[in-house]
């Protein structure tokens, strides 16, 4: 590290600590530990096994992190909230049945162990007997037993109490849950008086044979129920607290009133400014996991200030923007030149969702586009001809191709019994090669040459009256410079890859809400959207694209193919509908396989490959960002579903910033361990 930089950094740090009025150097040894990356059980002792951080720097005892200020917490009630930005905070305050490890596999939390019956329809969880509720001051307020989970589930399913938040997962998986929910809707205000006993009497598939056992019965066999059970809809709630605060009061309880059972307590919360966490003294996992003495999360309006803060060491990590990366990269003497670390992808698999029923701004159907996109060759031109490298470079200027996404399902959502990651099964079926840092994987077949496809598409489409160039509408947030630039880059990519005589990208703007102004009005030709998994099974992804299912989100809202089918497709959409029908059949067949995980995933991979070959959507992007950091991301919880990724537990940190090289080593070790 740069010699000039270090003293400044230390003085700034001490300054802040002094201001925080906590001098806790003595605890350093106990709490500043780190965990080896192989903690698959999630239960290694942090304090005992803490090795020196791998780059020789002392582990940090306090973490200064940040969040963008548009992602400020809105709701403190984990059962009531549905926002990722809330969960990133709340996961540190409350725990559920299960958590995840750094590979995204479910691990024990309040449940010590769990098992299921033969067809995966009945799941039994054995709870720890040492979990307590405590208040914001760390005072013990109660003991958590299976009953608290019943109370929590009842709360979620009761429409009067939870106002329908987080109901979709229990009502689709749990026996009798939908019926009970409907019953509470019928009851109206009277539902306020229902208790978990009423819920049990209604035959909802959840029961507590004793204080520390919880049994769930699913509607249908559900081989992935462990990943559902770890979700917020099955978090515990304290009946005492509900009685004390009343229903309104409990729903709106803030950090000061709520009960905690997670690793941290909130020390201070200043809206749109700071959140600070201190360890929960009563946390059941205290002996097995390492935590920080304090975690401070600052809200940032601006990336510029973020970089500034990192330079002053007021932050321990910062994601870099394009200009900063270019600047650092071009200047070999820059102190951060060897410290730019590539992070793991964020948990969203971005797709360009084609809109099969586009409307013009005046509400008339844009049949030129609708006809064109219904043509398979036309869609395949996107898949096989559109070189997005420069578009990726907007996210990651150094290794743009790391952002390439070739699948519909997010990487790492699930692994088969041999430990093979699901999307690699799809990759095999598609004949995809490996990352080489030079060309996009899916363009390698023909070197991105689509002359034949283009001719085929133009011939077929001219015959049904499509005029060229076809205009493709892309919408961006008004006055958002980043999106404007991305749109300019994409426009150029379209022009280079397709030729201006074929497809032209036009850019429109929306003021506030993409969903409201563009998607609902069906004004876009394609919309870029990333699905974050709810649970660990491909059905959570592929199920969003099926033709007729009522809860196929993207089919109804983005591609609108479900609406086309319902209203009766035009002649020129017949082929498209056939493809969708076949795809749906494949998905339903795969979902019916519940006793053999390997066969199930294989069948899903088959369906997904079919979808990709026909380019029903175009996979676009993984967000692989560059960062300067003192935290080893590969020790963070990294689940593609659930809310645990921001738990500040078992993180490996270092007083010395990590270097690019070290991060590459971490990545290699991580991937080796993940395969093992």
């Amino acid at each position: 590290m740069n010699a000039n930089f270090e003293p400044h950094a230390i003085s700034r740090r001490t300054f802040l600590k002094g201001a925080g009025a906590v001098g806790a150097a003595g605890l350093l040894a106990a709490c500043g530990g780190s965990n080896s990356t192989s903690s698959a059980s999630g239960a290694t002792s942090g304090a005992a096994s803490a090795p020196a951080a791998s780059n020789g720097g002392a582990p940090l005892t306090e973490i200064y992190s940040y969040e963008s200020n548009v992602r400020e917490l809105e709701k403190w009630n984990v059962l009531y909230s549905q926002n990722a930005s809330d969960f990133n905070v709340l996961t540190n305050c409350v725990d559920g049945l299960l958590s995840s490890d750094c590979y995204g596999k479910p691990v024990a939390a309040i449940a010590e162990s769990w098992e299921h019956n033969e067809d995966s329809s009945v799941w039994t969880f054995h709870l720890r007997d040492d979990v307590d509720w405590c208040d914001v001051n760390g005072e013990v307020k109660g003991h958590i037993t299976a009953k608290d989970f019943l109370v929590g589930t009842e709360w979620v399913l009761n429409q009067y109490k939870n106002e329908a938040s987080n109901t979709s997962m229990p009502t689709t998986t749990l026996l009798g849950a939908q019926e009970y929910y409907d019953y509470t809707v019928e009851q109206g205000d009277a539902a306020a008086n229902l208790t978990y006993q009423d819920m049990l009497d209604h035959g909802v598939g959840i029961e507590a044979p004793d204080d520390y056992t919880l049994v769930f019965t699913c509607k249908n066999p559900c081989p992935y129920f462990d990943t559902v059970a770890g979700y917020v809809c099955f978090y515990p709630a304290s009946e005492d607290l509900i009685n004390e605060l009343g229903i309104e009061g409990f729903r709106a309880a803030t950090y000061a009133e709520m009960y905690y059972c997670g690793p941290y307590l909130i020390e201070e919360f200043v809206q749109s400014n700071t959140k600070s966490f201190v360890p929960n003294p009563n946390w059941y996992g205290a002996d097995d996991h390492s935590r920080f003495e304090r975690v401070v999360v600052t809200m940032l309006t601006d990336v510029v200030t973020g970089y500034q803060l990192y330079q002053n060491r007021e932050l321990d990590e910062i994601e870099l923007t394009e200009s900063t990366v270019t600047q650092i990269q071009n200047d070999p003497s820059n102190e951060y030149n060897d410290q730019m670390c590539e992070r793991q992808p964020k948990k969203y698999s971005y797709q360009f969702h084609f809109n099969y029923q586009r409307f013009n701004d005046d509400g008339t159907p844009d049949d030129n586009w609708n006809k064109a996109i219904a043509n398979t060759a036309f869609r395949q031109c996107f898949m096989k001809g559109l070189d997005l490298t420069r578009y990726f470079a907007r996210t990651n200027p150094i290794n743009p191709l790391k952002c390439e996404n070739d699948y519909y399902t997010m990487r790492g959502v699930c692994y088969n019994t041999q430990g093979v990651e699901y999307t690699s099964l799809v990759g095999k079926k598609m004949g995809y090669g490996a990352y080489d840092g030079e060309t996009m994987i899916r363009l390698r077949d023909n070197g991105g040459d689509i002359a034949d496809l283009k001719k085929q598409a133009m011939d077929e489409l001219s015959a049904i009256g499509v005029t060229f160039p076809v205009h493709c509408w892309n919408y961006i947030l008004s006055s958002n410079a980043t999106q404007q630039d991305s749109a300019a880059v994409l426009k150029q990519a379209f022009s280079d890859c397709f030729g201006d005589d074929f497809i032209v990208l036009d850019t429109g703007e929306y003021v506030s809400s993409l969903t409201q102004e563009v998607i609902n009005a069906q004004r876009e030709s394609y919309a870029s959207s990333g699905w974050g998994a709810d649970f660990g099974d491909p059905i959570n992804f592929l199920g969003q694209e099926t033709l007729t299912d009522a809860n196929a989100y993207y089919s109804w809202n983005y591609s609108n193919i479900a609406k086309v089918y319902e209203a009766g497709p035009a002649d020129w959409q017949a082929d498209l509908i056939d493809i969708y029908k076949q795809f749906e059949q494949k998905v339903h067949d795969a979902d019916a396989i519940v006793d053999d995980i390997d066969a199930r995933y294989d069948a899903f991979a088959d369906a997904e490959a079919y979808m990709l070959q026909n380019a029903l959507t175009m996979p676009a992007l993984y967000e692989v960002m560059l960062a300067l950091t003192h935290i080893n991301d590969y020790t963070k919880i990294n689940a593609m579903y659930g809310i645990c990724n921001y738990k500040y537990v078992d993180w490996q940190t270092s007083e010395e910033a990590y270097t690019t090289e070290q991060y590459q080593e971490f990545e290699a070790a991580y991937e080796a361990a993940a395969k093992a």
Partner: protein
Amino acid sequence: MAKASDFAGKKDDELFYVVEYSPEEAERIGYSNYSYWGSVLRNFLKNKIAVFFLILFLILVVFSFIALAIGKYDYATLVPDTAPAFTTPNSEFWFGTDNLGRDYWCQVWYATQISIRLALIVAVGECVVGVIFGLIWGYVRKLDRLFTEIYNLLDSVPYIIYMTLIALMVGQSFTIMAVSMIFIGWFQTARRVRNMVFMYRDREYNLASRCLGTPLWRVLTKNILPYLVSVIILQTALNIPYTINMESTLSYLGLGLGIETPSLGLLLAKVRTFFLDYPYLLIFPASIVSIISVSFYIMGNAFSDAADPRNHV
């Protein structure tokens, strides 16, 4: 001279009659070879610094057209290319390139034209609407309440609400932006004018003027307005930098102009995230904004000094 005998035997009606109001006659008293605007111009031209800035501003406007004509790239056909991204100014790219490797020269000058146009339209619009309503508001007491209520209503609903709702419901374009900025800005000028009118309305000469039956519009334009010219001009001149400033704030909030019309404000809001690493991206548009603003401050002050009739002797 009329003799007493001329009036003998005539009735009062014939002797006295009401003279029609005549603007020419009214000006005759105290008439001298004095032209108000001529003096203003003479006084203004005496201020060398102000003249310098006036010329500078005119050169800037003219040059923005020349610059676009002589530039090596055309704004309409700019192409993103990562290779020359963040090139510092050189002989190929006179102002360097932006983050997408697009020529910055033509972007800056194109934006300059749009910003100047917007600022002038808004400032003049606010001035015209504001002065008219301000005069009526200040002078006609019966309307004071009504106008005060309108003012309060407009003033008490924060402009962000108007701008957000206009953007959501009407859309975003140059015209919409200009009209809505006039709409949310005119009453500030009106209020300032009203307050000045209050101070002059009951002066003795106005009382005399009213007694002589001078029509309302004439009292306003001849007796009161000249006193206000200096303040109005200053306010209008200040509105120009204020508009540019507000436009950049609105751009920062995503409520600015659309993509087809890149203003300096949009440019500044965008490059603000790069300027630590690449200062030239900020320096060029910021200096142009500063030149425009400084010019109008200096000119506004000088003109307002020159417009004060008490300085004309």
